[in-house]
């Protein structure tokens, strides 16, 4: 990996942080994902699915492509199986195309943190640890189960062990299970950013810091809406400091957008806060955050060869799968079409 200047400030870019330089070892892999990108569902398909008369009609729109559900099996469990299968395939492809094994491990750690969150919630609230953990992480589900059953965390990797210890201490402050999530979110964000810097990847650094900012924006609007007093839940490591968001809590919905005037997030905050004020809903905030992240991922189009387009493909494909699940779930539950359209980015 080339040596790059990390720790960039938000004033160093306009809309999206820089994606870095070409890495010609990835010429084949980049070309392959570019070809695969042409098979991704266009935005119009999601809009058509949202506008479909019924759940069955929405499902029919997927029948010609890779998300086709086998005939005679139209239950939601079958659809979920197809979606999980596609997700497993895209993760497998990602692992096979990525030359830097550390990047694969970094993305697999997402599942480790998700599994840990589940296991800790169960263990600390005296429920059975269970066996329904994701097998896609760096830590095998059976190793995690064994660690919790025997209370021997030494078998876990350092980042999982540290997160388990910190989340447990945080939980016992006031025995609030949400503290487990806050602490794991915080440590996961820091782990991602630290790893990105260790790998010298300006793209991953920008991506993870943008994700932290978007999470903080969602948290800001949620805290504001629920008028919560808990203001120490903003994540560190983003382009904007937690103090910036804390200041936003004192402002009205109409003024929050202006607070973000010198940042790339002004439009999404304005739209999200306006929708929240008028509709008492976070749909537009979620949609706008997704749209911003997809915009960053699409900016990797300027890279002819490198890990950036492959990472972007993985994340865009996972987003596509989530959006299909979201639209179909909404149609199944006969949600208002306008609400679905407001949500999808």
């Amino acid at each position, binding site marked *: 990996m080339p040596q790059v200047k990390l720790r960039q400030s938000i004033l160093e870019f306009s809309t999206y942080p820089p994606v870095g330089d070409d890495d010609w070892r990835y*010429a*084949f892999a*980049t*070309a*392959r994902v*570019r070809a695969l990108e*042409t098979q991704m569902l266009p935005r119009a398909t999601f809009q058509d699915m949202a506008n479909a008369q019924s759940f069955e009609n929405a499902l029919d729109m997927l029948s010609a492509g890779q998300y086709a559900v086998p005939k005679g099996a139209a239950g939601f469990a079958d659809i979920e199986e197809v979606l999980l299968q596609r997700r497993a395939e895209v993760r497998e492809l990602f692992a096979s195309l990525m030359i830097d094994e550390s990047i694969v491990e970094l993305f697999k750690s997402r599942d480790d943190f998700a599994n840990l969150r589940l296991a800790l919630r169960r263990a600390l609230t005296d429920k059975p640890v269970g066996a329904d953990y994701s097998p896609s992480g760096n830590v095998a589900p059976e190793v995690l189960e064994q660690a919790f059953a025997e209370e021997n965390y030494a078998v876990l990797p350092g980042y999982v062990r540290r997160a388990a210890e910190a989340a447990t201490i945080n939980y016992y402050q006031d025995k609030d299970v949400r503290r487990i999530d806050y602490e794991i979110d915080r440590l996961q964000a820091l782990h991602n950013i630290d790893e990105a810097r260790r790998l010298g990847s300006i793209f991953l650094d920008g991506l993870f810091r943008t994700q932290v900012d978007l999470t903080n924006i969602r948290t800001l609007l949620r805290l504001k809406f629920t008028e919560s007093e808990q203001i120490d839940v903003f994540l560190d490591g983003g382009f904007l400091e937690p103090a910036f968001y804390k200041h936003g809590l004192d402002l009205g919905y109409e003024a929050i957008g202006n607070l973000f005037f010198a940042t790339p997030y002004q439009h999404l905050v304005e739209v999200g806060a306006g929708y929240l004020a008028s509709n008492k809903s976070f749909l537009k905030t979620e949609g706008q955050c997704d749209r911003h992240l997809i915009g960053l991922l699409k900016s990797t189009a300027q890279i*002819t*060869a490198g890990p950036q387009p492959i990472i972007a493909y993985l994340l865009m494909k996972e987003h596509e799968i989530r959006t299909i699940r979201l639209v179909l779930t909404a149609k199944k539950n006969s949600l208002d079409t306008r609400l679905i359209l407001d949500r999808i980015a």
Partner: protein
Amino acid sequence: MSQIAIGIAFLGAAMAAFMAGIGSAVGIGIAGRSATGVLTEKPERYGQLFLQVVLPGTQGFYGFVIAFFAMGKISDFIASAAGLGISDALAVFSACLPIAFAGLLSAIHQGKTCAAGILMTAKRPEMAVKAGVLYAAMVEVYAVLGFLISLLILLAIEVPAAA
């Protein structure tokens, strides 16, 4: 002294062939890897991609032609009454440099341009020639200029009559 002169002149010819050849090999390697990536998913694009893969190969041929001319010139000098002097050898060596360096660098950059064109062709096949090939051909111009200057210098070197 004449042995040193022959060595210098042949070094020029060799540089023209191997530097331009290395450039072409690297350029084709880059474009080829990109093309195989696209063909893995879209084998029907083979015809559209072929030209973009082979384009960086031309510099190797330019280097080969110049090396061939230079060797002819060296043979003529050796066969001449005066033989090959240091100044003649340096002239032949210098004549080979434009295509050696222009070929090396332009072929690598042309390979990268072709790789970008190949990625674009994967998504927008109708732009394969308009942008993919045309932009790569613009890089080719500077290899052609290097080739022409090398050729003109070689042709300008006068060889005395044979012994």
